[in-house]
Each structure stands twice: as structure tokens, then as C-alpha cells.
């Protein structure tokens, strides 16, 4: 072994958009927004909490001195761990540059894998989606991939959670209509975890809420932040902002205002109970000024996602990101391009809990084929991020010398030992020779994905929950149905 003094090693690619000075400048700018402009808070209890924490409350307008933000940044945990709901295994560690991928939640529509038609999502479509996510090796967590619409809508969130938790053991990021919905869902989770304390110690779910840009915290959102803190459960708080629409058109302006919204949410959460687990979100993108969509595939969307990840690392906050989604109205070349770009950039930047894999039509429709294709893209991106290991074994000087000019490496122990770990083998991406591809039905990527989806739906069995637990969950869903019947 040679001596290697001053040796610097990259064990992964280095990728960042913002320098530490730029991060600091944006943080200070966001703090100035909170001190000068402030945010409106439509929940009285939240305003009381903020006032006690040292904020300046004037009617519904709350201005937040920088010291209060700094205090919240100090008390918030730098890491959150999410578990498998069946085994309690602590699989998803939201910290540092760990990037995990999962789906998105409440699309009104989904593409039926059997008819190819865009239809309203149902309890069955959500159940199927969760099965598929559970089966795909590169998906780490679950959001419902559809809003359940074939049950009474006022309590559809309970049905939606039931459909998810029965069909996957991966951690769940759950939406709910309001805190009453959340209370029921948390109760279900406590039953599954085996108690209030058990859930808190090994959470397999996180709540989800959003501020309203520009700079508003609605009653629903603020009360969810408070509930999460009281329960000691993690909460994702994610501004969904559109450059030129609800935030300035400039990227730095987007980051500043979006961050101000997140940080004010953080203050509500931490002032309720210091040390509560909090995951900073942010779907920061542009409004397309021609079609007026909220874009899920533009280059600016990727740029903002990666720079927000730099910001999150700078602040040492776990972050909720977005990737693997598309503006395209179907699963076509455009969808593939947009998803590949966002997944690669996300994997390189390292935000932690990355959702919306499988969204098409700018977040209005989900596709299980797209999800399944992206499972491979995530695998490819993970290979990129693993980078290149440089040492005596991998430089392979002895081997190169042994084979010498001419010859080949196919029958070497060294090849046998390394080829499978050095190379990623995707499952749907096609590398067949032309003739075999023809013989195998000359299928497109989409067709192969469709077959895989149907195979999973028909043959895959997720780990079941114990029968008695299933019954208790059912009882909560039914109780909510009765409560609205009255």
C-alpha cells in the first residue's frame, strides 16, 4: 500500500447549485421577510402560541423576529427516521444527503392499467397503486397516488389511509382533510404500532400540510402543525409556489419567499413543542405563462429543487423533495425526459424524502406504468450517485498487466467478483439485441411496464396486517362514516 498524504476522496459525485454564502444570504433574506412583511395566520391558537414565542402579532398578521426563527432552527431535530409498519425496521433515515423516493398523493385522476383510460381514482385504484409501490425495490415510501372518490367524500381520507396501510408496509406520508381526519388516522397508526409511545418512537407515517402562498397559514395548515407537535409525530410542511404567480419570477425570490413560508411553519411547530420532528418541504416551480399550469417538469423546477436541497443541508433540516413527475398528458417521451432529469438531479442533490414519482399531467393524473419505469430510472440514478471507488483493488493494475495487450477480461475472478456490484441491471430498460427484441414481441418500454404492473396487481401479496388490527382499523373507518350520517 503506497503512502497517500493529503489524499482527498470523492465517494460520490459532488453537485450543488448554491454556495454556502448564497445559502446564508437567502436565509437572511427570508428572515427579513418574516420580520418585515410577516405572514397571516388564520388559526387563533397558533397566533397565541406565536405571541408567547416572542412574535409580533397584529390581528391575523404575525411578524417573526429573526431570533425566534433561529431558536426554532436550533430546537428542531436534524434527522427523522421512518419505519416499516409491519416490522418496525428503521428503513428511511431522513438526514444528510440520503435521498429516498416515493409517490405523490391526491391526484383526481389515474390511468387504468387495464383500459388505458384516464378515470377518477377510487379506493381500488389506490389499493392497487400501493401494492405496486410495495413491490418496487427502488420506491421507499408511499403517498396514495390518487384521491379516493367512490366513498363518502367528507371522510374519504380515512378510507384512503386504510387502502394504503393494508397494501404496503413501507412508510406512508399521509394527507387528511383536516385535523379530525388526522386524529382518526393517527389512532389507526397507534393501533398498528401497538401504542401511542410506540408510534412516536418508531413512526411509520408522517403528516402532511401546506401553507398558502403568498405567506399565509390557513386554519387547516396551522392546526395540523400544532397537532403534529403535540403528538410528537413528524410533519411535512410544503409550500407549493409558482414563480411569477404566487412568488416573484426570479429564482432567488422564489427561494426566499418559499423559505420564509417554511420557516414560519417551523416556528409554529417548534413553539408548540420544542424538538418536534419537522420535515421542510417545497414544491418550488414556475407557472407556465402560456398554459398557466403549475409545472412539474420544467428545468427551473429542477433547479429550484436542487437549490432548496442545498438550503436544507445548510440549515441541517430534513427535506421533502419532488421528482419523477411530468407535465405531459400521457406517458410518452416527454414524461421520460422530465422524470429522468428530475430523478437524476434529485439523487445528486440529496433532498431526503422525494415524492410525486408517477405523476403525469402536471400533478392531476397518476400512472402506474410511469411509476414502474421510474423505478428503473431511480436505480440508474442511484448507480450514478454511488460514484467511483478508487483503490488498489479497483485500479486493477495486476489484472491489466496479466491480460496485457490483446486478450479479454471475461473469465477473470476479478470480473466475476465486481461486475454485478459495479454495474446496475435495470429490469424494464431494454438492452436486447434487435432479433431477440423482435422475438419477444417487439414491445415498447410502456408495454413492458404495463405487463409488470398487471403482474404485480394480480400476483403480488403485500405483508398483511394481523386480522384483529385490520378489524380495528375498519371500525375507525366505519365510525367516521356514522359520524357524518348523523
Amino acid at each position, binding site marked *: 500500500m503506497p503512502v497517500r498524504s493529503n489524499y482527498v476522496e470523492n465517494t460520490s459525485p459532488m453537485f450543488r447549485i448554491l454556495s454556502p454564502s448564497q445559502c446564508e444570504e437567502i436565509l437572511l433574506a427570508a428572515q427579513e421577510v418574516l420580520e418585515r412583511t410577516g405572514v397571516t395566520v388564520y388559526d387563533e391558537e397558533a397566533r397565541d402560541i406565536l405571541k408567547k414565542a416572542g412574535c409580533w402579532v397584529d390581528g391575523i398578521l404575525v411578524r417573526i423576529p429573526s431570533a425566534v426563527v433561529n431558536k426554532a432552527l436550533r430546537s428542531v431535530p436534524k434527522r427523522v427516521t421512518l419505519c416499516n409498519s409491519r416490522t418496525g425496521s428503521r428503513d428511511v433515515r431522513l438526514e444528510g444527503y440520503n435521498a429516498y423516493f416515493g409517490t405523490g398523493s391526491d391526484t383526481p*385522476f389515474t390511468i387504468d392499467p387495464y383500459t388505458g383510460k384516464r378515470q377518477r381514482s377510487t379506493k381500488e385504484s389506490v389499493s392497487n397503486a400501493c401494492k405496486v409501490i410495495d413491490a418496487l425495490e427502488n420506491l421507499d415510501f408511499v403517498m396514495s397516488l390518487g384521491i379516493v372518490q367512490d366513498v363518502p367524500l367528507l371522510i374519504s381520507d380515512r378510507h384512503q389511509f386504510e387502502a394504503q396501510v393494508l397494501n404496503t408496509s413501507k412508510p406512508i406520508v399521509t394527507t387528511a382533510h383536516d385535523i379530525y381526519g388526522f386524529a382518526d388516522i393517527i389512532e389507526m397508526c397507534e393501533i398498528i404500532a401497538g401504542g401511542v409511545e410506540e408510534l412516536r418512537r418508531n413512526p411509520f407515517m408522517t403528516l402532511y400540510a401546506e401553507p398558502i402562498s403568498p405567506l399565509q397559514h390557513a386554519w387547516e395548515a396551522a392546526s395540523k402543525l400544532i397537532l403534529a407537535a403535540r403528538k410528537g409525530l413528524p410533519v411535512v410542511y410544503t409550500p407549493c409556489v409558482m414563480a411569477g404567480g404566487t412568488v416573484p419570477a426570479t429564482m432567488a425570490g422564489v427561494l426566499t419567499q418559499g423559505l420564509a413560508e417554511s420557516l414560519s411553519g417551523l416556528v409554529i411547530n417548534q413553539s408548540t413543542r420544542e424538538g418536534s420532528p419537522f420535515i421542510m418541504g417545497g414544491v418550488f416551480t414556475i407557472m407556465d405563462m402560456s*398554459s398557466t399550469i403549475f409545472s412539474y417538469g420544467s428545468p427551473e423546477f429542477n433547479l429550484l429543487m436542487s437549490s432548496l436541497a442545498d438550503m436544507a443541508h445548510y440549515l441541517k433540516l430534513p427535506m421533502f423533495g419532488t421528482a419523477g413527475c411530468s407535465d405531459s398528458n400521457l406517458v410518452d417521451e416527454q414524461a421520460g425526459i422530465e422524470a429522468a432529469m428530475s430523478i437524476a438531479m434529485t439523487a445528486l442533490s440529496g433532498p431526503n424524502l422525494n415524492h410525486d414519482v408517477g405523476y403525469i399531467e402536471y400533478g392531476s393524473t397518476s400512472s402506474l406504468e410511469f411509476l414502474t419505469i421510474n423505478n428503473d430510472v431511480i436505480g440508474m440514478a442511484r448507480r450514478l450517485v454511488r460514484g467511483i471507488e478508487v483503490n488498489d483493488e479497483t485500479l486493477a493494475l495486476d489484472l491489466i498487466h496479466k491480460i496485457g495487450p490483446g486478450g479479454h477480461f471475461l473469465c477473470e475472478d476479478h470480473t466475476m467478483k465486481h461486475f454485478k456490484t459495479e454495474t446496475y441491471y435495470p429490469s424494464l430498460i431494454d438492452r436486447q439485441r434487435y432479433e431477440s427484441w423482435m422475438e419477444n414481441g417487439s414491445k415498447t418500454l410502456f408495454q413492458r411496464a404495463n405487463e409488470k404492473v398487471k403482474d404485480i396487481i394480480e400476483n403480488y401479496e403485500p405483508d398483511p396486517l394481523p386480522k384483529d388490527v385490520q378489524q380495528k382499523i375498519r371500525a375507525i373507518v366505519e365510525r367516521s362514516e356514522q359520524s357524518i350520517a348523523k
Partner: protein
Amino acid sequence: MSNYYEELSQSIISGQLDRVKSLTQQAIGAGDNPVDIINQGLIPGMSVVGARFKSGQMYVPEVLMSARAMDAGMQLVKPLILTEDIPSAGKVVIGTVKGDLHDIGKNLVSMMLESAGYTVINVGVDAGPEKFLQAVKEHQPGVIGMSALLTTTMLAMKDTIELLKEEGLRDKVKVIIGGAPISQDFADEIGADGFAPDAGSAADLCKKLLA
């Protein structure tokens, strides 16, 4: 016929507020008929803007700048004519339905309608059927537009339509709806008069319904 009109139209298309103001002022000073200034200078400019937006040659902020310039011109001319002579494409009451706080789409529709010459009464977000009813009674619009982005709130649209029926006002006003989960099927199902997928087509829809 004044020679200001062509330039006035051009200035509206390029969204030059100050230029529109000064040209309008000059036309008024030259003794032009105020109604002509509107119909031959201001509106033709805005019509070009509408067409260019639809064909993708102009973007939303540009359209809104043009609309702002046009409005500045209108403000100068309006005091000179009788209210009933002021051309208005019609009145529209618009809002986001009860329980729903998504508002940027609704605001865009409202601004695009205004730039197409409609008078818009924006009742805000979280607007229940009573709020729409009250606005209909107060403003007597030709159209009411409801926005919903949530499947849980889109049913509230039906409640508004029912309430209008109960009050005997349903035939007096056209109902249009929009938002992410809304489709033409849903519009038919709840008995709305129309659905539009975006702000540009919302203006066309109003035009069609009020024709």
C-alpha cells in the same frame, strides 16, 4: 376618424400604460367621440392581445400589462360618457367554492375575463352557495363562475346551482365551472352551463354563453 387609433391599439398590445394614457388624452383633446376611442382604439388592441395569447405568441403577464394599459385608457374616457354607453362584454361573478382555498387559478380567470372586457365581481375563496346567491342578487351578472381544485369541494358547486333554482334565479344566470378535478362530464352532471379548462378558454366560454 382619428389617426390616434392605430397607435393606441399598438400601445395596448405592447402594454405601454403611459403611452396609452397620453394618446387617449390627446384623442379626447382633439374632440374625438369617446365611444369611438373605446371601440376603435382600445378594444381592437385588446382583441389582438386575446388572439395572440390563444395562439401562444403572448404570455399571461404581457396580457395583463395590456389589460392594465387598456383600463388606464378607459378610466380617462369613462367620465365623458353615460354609463349605459360604456361597452361591457357583461358581468361575471366569480369565486372559489366553500372549503377550498386555491385561488390563483380563479384570480387568473377573473383577470383574463376583465381583459376581455367583462366586469368581474370576485367573491374570493371559501365562498358558500349563499355568498354566490347574494352576489347574484346584488349584481345581476350574466354569468357566475365557480372554481374548485378539490374533489371534496367540487360538490359545493351543485349546492349553489340548487340554491339558485330554489330562489328562482337559475334561468337568469349562466353557471360556468373549472379547476383541476372538473370535467365536462361533471359540468353536465350537476347541470352547469359550461366548463373551461383554462383562463383563456373561460373568456371564450362566456362569450358563447352570453351571445
